[in-house]
């Protein structure tokens, strides 16, 4: 009898049909990945397995069997007995999935005692035991600390420990590593892998990142608009995809090991220099020397950026890559003049500049908060024009429509509101706004990390075209090594506020010098399962050494 049996599952929220007739089975100990873009309904399926949609007004159809329990017709008590004991779930955002007011050990003990009649002390011992099992050092003492005293990665380990407490047959992981840095993500995926080897429990992994899927499952099911697009062994689906949508999806995934595709490489600047030839000093647009910045006051001050120097040339893209907390965003804000450096200086066209400079614009990460929701899109784009003193409405509207078309939207969108656009479209508006100031440099702070793979590819392509056409200098700040490789001419790797390595993209990616860069590159999930297995072995040695 298979571990999970889903036949013709449908889930509707009001008039939206999130899951439309999905069927699949998962055998004991097997691992299946639900892969799809946001809005494909993959998370809804995961929640449906534990009957979490009951009482939320959603209409659930079809049959679901998990570890012998018919979820679609189970009573609340039956469901409560299933959840945690037979099937446990780990959620996406470790930062908020634990109760901030209780020690972590107590929370795990509480869940454990729901399913097993044991004393409070024994439950706490069990909590320490599973915490140790997921690799948290000095588990007994750490079990008494509160969630905010753990890093993101450690908290996800704690959540996995909570899932292990009752030794369930099935672990459902809904985007377990999306909110984590790539190195931490690798550790968590390895942990899941080893745990499955030891306990033989089944895994249902929900992710939008094909690489993550390739690393950790036997079978892949690609979903789109609540329906199955393709379902089969991971090597087949990823190696030789049958459906056009899967192929498009895989093509859009940036490769960390493939050099920059010819189409995106910037056409040689009009004065036909060879890319590798040492650029002359004349076309350095923006230069930072010895930049420093502390954040916070008194005892708790931390040096976010510590003595960083870099140069940005006309028509060139500089990639700045680093994990969360590396200071890359603070550096970006200082380059643009939004943030005052506590040391060093920023020079534009050779002379030092302090504060905001219209020639250096920025594109922001979060599509939701980058546009004022109460003003129409056209108004936001027109801001730089009006700030420059342009009064003639007709000319403003003309210029804005031109820009809208240039970024792939329609001029008529002038009077529409941000909430009427998708994430990708909103980023395009952000770019149009930056262009409105006719800048020579645009600093992009994680411009595409909030987007789906396909939209990501389109926006990256747009940036490349604009750079070629207008000779813009771009600074591309991001944590995703693969995306940075696809867009950058030169790359700088940052760690704890310092640049640990920099050079041309191919040098840095093909033979990295700094151990931290090596570690980063090793942690990037590979699309090919065999490569992924080899990488995991290499990491295990590196960790053991």
């Amino acid at each position, binding site marked *: 009898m298979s571990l999970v049996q889903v036949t013709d599952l449908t889930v509707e929220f009001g008039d939206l049909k999130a899951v439309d007739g999905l069927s699949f089975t998962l055998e004991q100990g097997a691992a299946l990945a639900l892969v799809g873009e946001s809005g494909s309904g993959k998370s809804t399926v995961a929640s449906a397995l*534990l009957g*979490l949609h009951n009482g939320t007004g959603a209409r659930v159809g079809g049959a679901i069997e998990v570890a012998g329990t018919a979820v679609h017709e189970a009573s609340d008590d039956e*469901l*409560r*007995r*299933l*959840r*945690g*004991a037979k099937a*446990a*779930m780990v*959620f996406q*955002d470790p930062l*908020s*999935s*634990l*109760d*901030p*007011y*209780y020690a972590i050990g107590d929370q795990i003990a*509480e*869940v454990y005692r*729901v*399913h097993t009649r044991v004393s409070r002390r024994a439950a706490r011992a069990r909590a320490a035991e599973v915490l140790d099992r997921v690799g948290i050092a000095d588990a007994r003492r750490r079990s008494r600390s*509160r969630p*905010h005293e753990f890093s993101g990665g450690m908290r996800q380990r704690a*959540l996995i420990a*909570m899932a292990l407490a009752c030794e369930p047959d099935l672990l459902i992981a809904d985007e377990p590593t999306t909110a984590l840095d790539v190195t931490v993500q690798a550790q968590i995926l390895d942990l899941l892998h080893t745990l499955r080897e030891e306990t033989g429990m089944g895994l249902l992994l929900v992710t939008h990142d094909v690489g993550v899927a390739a690393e950790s499952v036997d079978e892949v099911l690609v979903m789109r608009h609540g329906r199955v697009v393709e379902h089969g062994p991971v090597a087949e689906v990823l190696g030789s995809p049958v459906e056009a949508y899967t192929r498009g999806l895989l093509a859009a995934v940036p490769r960390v090991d493939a050099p920059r595709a010819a189409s995106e490489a910037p056409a040689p600047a009009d004065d036909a220099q060879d890319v590798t030839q040492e650029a002359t000093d004349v076309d350095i647009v923006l230069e930072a020397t010895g930049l420093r910045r502390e954040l916070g006051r008194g005892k*708790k001050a931390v040096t976010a950026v510590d003595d960083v120097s870099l140069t940005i040339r006309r028509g060139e893209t500089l990639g700045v890559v680093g994990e969360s907390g590396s200071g890359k965003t603070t550096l970006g804000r200082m380059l643009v003049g939004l943030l005052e450096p506590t040391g060093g200086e920023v020079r534009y066209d050779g002379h030092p500049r302090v504060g905001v400079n219209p020639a250096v614009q920025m594109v922001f990460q979060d599509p939701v908060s980058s546009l004022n929701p109460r003003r129409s899109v056209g108004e936001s784009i027109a801001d730089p024009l009006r700030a420059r003193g342009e009064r003639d409405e007709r000319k403003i509207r003309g210029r804005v429509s031109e820009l809208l078309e240039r970024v792939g939207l329609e001029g008529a969108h002038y009077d529409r509101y941000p909430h009427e656009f998708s994430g990708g479209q909103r980023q395009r508006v952000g770019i149009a706004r930056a262009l409105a100031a006719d800048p020579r440099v645009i600093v992009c702070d994680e411009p595409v990390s909030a987007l789906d793979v396909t939209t990501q590819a389109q926006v990256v392509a747009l940036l490349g075209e604009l750079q070629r056409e207008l000779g813009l200098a771009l600074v591309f700040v991001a944590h995703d090594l693969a995306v940075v490789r696809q867009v950058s001419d030169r790359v700088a790797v940052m760690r704890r506020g310092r640049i640990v390595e920099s050079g041309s993209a191919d040098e840095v990616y093909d033979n990295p010098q700094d151990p931290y860069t090596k570690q980063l590159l090793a942690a990037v999930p590979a699309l090919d399962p065999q490569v992924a297995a080899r990488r995991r072995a290499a990491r295990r040695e590196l960790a053991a050494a």
Partner: protein
Amino acid sequence: MSGFGGFLLRRLVGAVITLLAISVLVYVVFYATPGNVAQITCGPRCSPEQVRQVAEQLKLDDPLYLRYWHFLVGLIAGQDYSTGTSVAHCSAPCLGLSYQSDQQVLDIILAKLPVSLSLVLGAMVLWLILGVGTGVLSAWRRGRFTERLLTGLTLAGWATPVFVIGLVLMIVVCGELRLLPFPQYVRLTDDPEQWAWNLLLPWLSLALIEAAAFARMTRASMLETLAEDHIRTFRAYGVAERTIVVRHALRGALAPVIALNANNVGSAIGGAVLTETLFGLPGIGQELVHAVNVVDLPVVVGMVLVIGFFVVLANAVADVLYAVADRRVVLT
């Protein structure tokens, strides 16, 4: 933990500055109040000569800044005053003498403070039980009939002024049903049992007003916490709904409620004047209203400072409680 000591020091300095600013404000406002203080103190039929003598006795002819300077000196070093037959000393935190009764203001306050504190602290217990209880229930039973009923009741309590509720309650409970004696203040130290019996009605009236604020507060906070991700985690692990609400949702919701409560207690010390007046409890609020009517400046300044002190103290306590409850908050 130096952070905590630093916090206390900063709050103390801030409090002192605030209280001094309040005292200046009160002096300026009351200095301009009409009504010839000397005439009021001396009595309506006093001759101009007698009024002049009283004015000189109370140093009323000094300019504003000199009178405020005497007030400050009194606060720090205390001051001597003559009772006619002898010279008495009003020790360090001396808030001066009442124009009307020549009593030391500090003595008046110390006599009245226990009344106000018993009224407010007792009412606090009631309004917490009523408010938080109603809040939790209406959050848990969201959308159902009980929530509408509870919201309606708390609003009714809040909307009707205390002097209406208090009086009707008194007439019904003490007058007709004779369940309780008519409230009169019995000192806690003399007879705790009578103290509680007599204050039950004033507590109830004051609590009914404040409970509504807490009910709305707790309900909003509960709803917000119930929407947090960690609640979903526990649901996904089969924890019973009731445990989730009590152990997790309520604990999370209590932090802001604690902050509001402390702030509320502070302002209620001065604000409960209506309850005090109605039930004849000789508290700070009632005395302050009387002092304002007879323009008894030292008593007014003294009382306003005491009330200001409690509000500032209450806010500091609220911040500390908030930090203890929610470790993430850093005390600034």
